[in-house]
């Protein structure tokens, strides 16, 4: 079985500051990985590097996505090949309605796969169906993308987009932050519904709570730009109880 994602000794940073200091991670089809770790440890940086944000300089290591060198690809080509990042802070885009944006996006992905654009009626029906998954109201379709959306609404909209784009690998960066208890359940339900044996998910989170709903196969702890510990779902429970200090200490001893 070829992994969907294989990261080896990845180092990356900004200007002369190194943020990722040697990350290695393998994600196989069907798996859910959780990445936890203290604030500032580099979780969002890792997600951004995977999505292709250009301000981060890759200084070493490799990332192979579905058998290809991911780092060679433009952000749009990564998306077209099935990479999806649910942003920690989704951007507001005035004047571009959610529906128009998604129509453009979906049809770009289809074009890449050699498919015809979806007929407007088919597309609308698909949007309505997928919105139900995250219990989003249809009125959002005509509103400017993320503009004036509440924090929770923005997060739901990310998962709605994921449902529309059907990625091979979804990286969810703190999609649970800012969600109320019901919304958390709904969003998690959406993510679970989208799981397939051929796709995978990386969940970046601070809280065990989300992992009660989306059961991870592997939990990683990212600390100071390195994955310092990986384990089963019980690792998340232990972190919830004990915090990160013990891991930091262990990591310091190893180093």
């Amino acid at each position, binding site marked *: 079985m070829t992994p969907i994602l294989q990261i080896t000794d990845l180092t990356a940073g900004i200007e002369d500051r190194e943020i990722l200091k040697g990350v290695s991670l393998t994600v196989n089809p069907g798996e859910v990985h959780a990445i936890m770790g203290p604030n500032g440890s580099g979780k969002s940086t890792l997600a951004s590097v995977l999505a292709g944000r250009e301000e981060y300089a890759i200084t070493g290591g490799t990332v192979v996505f579905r058998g290809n060198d991911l780092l060679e690809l433009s952000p*749009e080509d990564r*998306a077209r090949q099935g990479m999806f990042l649910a*942003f920690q802070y989704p951007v507001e885009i005035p004047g*571009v*309605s959610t529906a128009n944006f998604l129509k*453009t*996006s979906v049809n770009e*992905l289809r074009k890449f796969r050699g498919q015809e654009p979806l007929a407007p009626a088919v597309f*609308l029906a698909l949007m309505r169906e997928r919105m139900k998954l995250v219990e989003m109201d249809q009125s959002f379709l005509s509103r400017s993308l993320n503009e004036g959306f509440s924090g929770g609404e923005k997060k739901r909209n990310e998962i709605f987009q994921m449902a529309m*784009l059907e990625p091979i690998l979804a990286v969810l960066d703190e999609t649970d932050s800012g969600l109320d208890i019901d919304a958390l359940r709904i969003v998690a339900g959406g993510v679970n519904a989208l799981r397939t044996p051929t796709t995978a998910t990386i969940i970046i989170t601070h809280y065990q709570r989300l992992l009660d709903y989306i059961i991870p196969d592997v939990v990683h702890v990212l600390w100071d730009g390195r994955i310092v510990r990986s384990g089963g779902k019980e690792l998340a429970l232990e972190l919830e109880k004990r915090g990160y200090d013990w891991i930091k200490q262990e990591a310091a001893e190893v180093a």
Partner: protein
Amino acid sequence: MPQAAFNDVIKRSFDDLSKRLNGSASGPLHKMREAALKSFIEQGVPTTRHEEWKYANVLPFIGLEYSRVSEIAKSVTEKDIDEALGELVSVLESGWRVTIVNGQFRGDLSYLPAAVTGVSVDVLSDKLIANDEVVRAAYGSVAKSDAHPFVAMNTALACDGVVIRVAKGSEMKRPLHIAIISDARQVNVLTTPRILIVAEEGSEIDIVETHSTIGDQQALDVSVSEIAVGSNAHVRFHKVADDQDDSRHIGYTAATVARDGRFTSHCINIAGNFIRNDLVINLADVGSQAYLYGASVLGGVQFADSHTVVDHAVNNCHSEELYKGIYDGSSIGVFNGKIFVRPQAQKTTAYQSNHSVLLSDKAQVNAKPQLEIWADDVKCSHGATLGQLNDEAIFYLRSRGIDADKARALMTYAFVAEVLEHIDHEGLREFCEKRVASKLGTEPLSL
């Protein structure tokens, strides 16, 4: 000195016209021309030292040789006009068209409301001035020669201008297109089209004014449109600059709005080398309203200068203004928006906003809101922003499979569409959306 040479061209053209007019050279119109010529010579061709012309440098093209338009053969055909107007022909097919070629009204190329009551089109003449009190009162007083050198120039040379009257209470369902053509196929031409629109009490009409150049020689089109909006009348005026790449246009549009009347203006600049638009609105009576929308989508070496004035002369009037621009290449945009609130204009509400996006390092925009408020019980605001496209937003779109160019096009289109959406006439709105989208490398958003 190009100015001196240009003054000579104007004087010679005036003398020419005087001779051609024979008998009517002593009529009231020609008296006005004489006064206007004097005013033009006094004001002089503005240079960039002139505050209102700081960025609009006319010197490069006033020094050209211009032929006197009266010498040019009347060889423009329907087909030439169709070609110049392109898709707009079918967009406005259901409406009327007043065609003006090199400043002269061309009935043979126009589609006029013949047996229709409610709207009439006439050539501006001494007889009309003599017989029609409303025309007499409006002509040359809505747009005053002493207020602007090119209004003076236009008034001095305008002949065979057009008067459009919308009768009391008539709500015109079909748009009236004023197609202004400069025929520069054989020689350089300097044209001075002149329009007067009188919308009587309670009437309503959509006016679309376009300027098109045909031919490879140089054309300078200096046009003036005066609009008298009667009480409770509503004029929706649209000016679309979508001309040849090397075209030059200096336009002055003035409107006075009577009690509870409404004037809505849309100025859309899409193509042309040099576009200067002055829009001057006088809210002359209680309850009158003005809505000003403008969009410039420029690239290459294009220049578009929008000077707007809203004069709140009396109490309880309302104005709203939204101008936006997208500037690529080494294009230059200018926005100068004046709002005057006179001492007696209490309870005025006046809002202005102007937003620009620069797509290239070499593009420039010069924006100057100018609010002069002498009354105290008013609500006035203005906002201006200038920015680049948000990189975060572009990355967000790219991360969804939309390439960088398309992402930029989507965002810039959305930016301008917020202006275009105010155009009520569906066909015209769609036409503008399509033209803007294609210039920005996308297509109109349809959901």
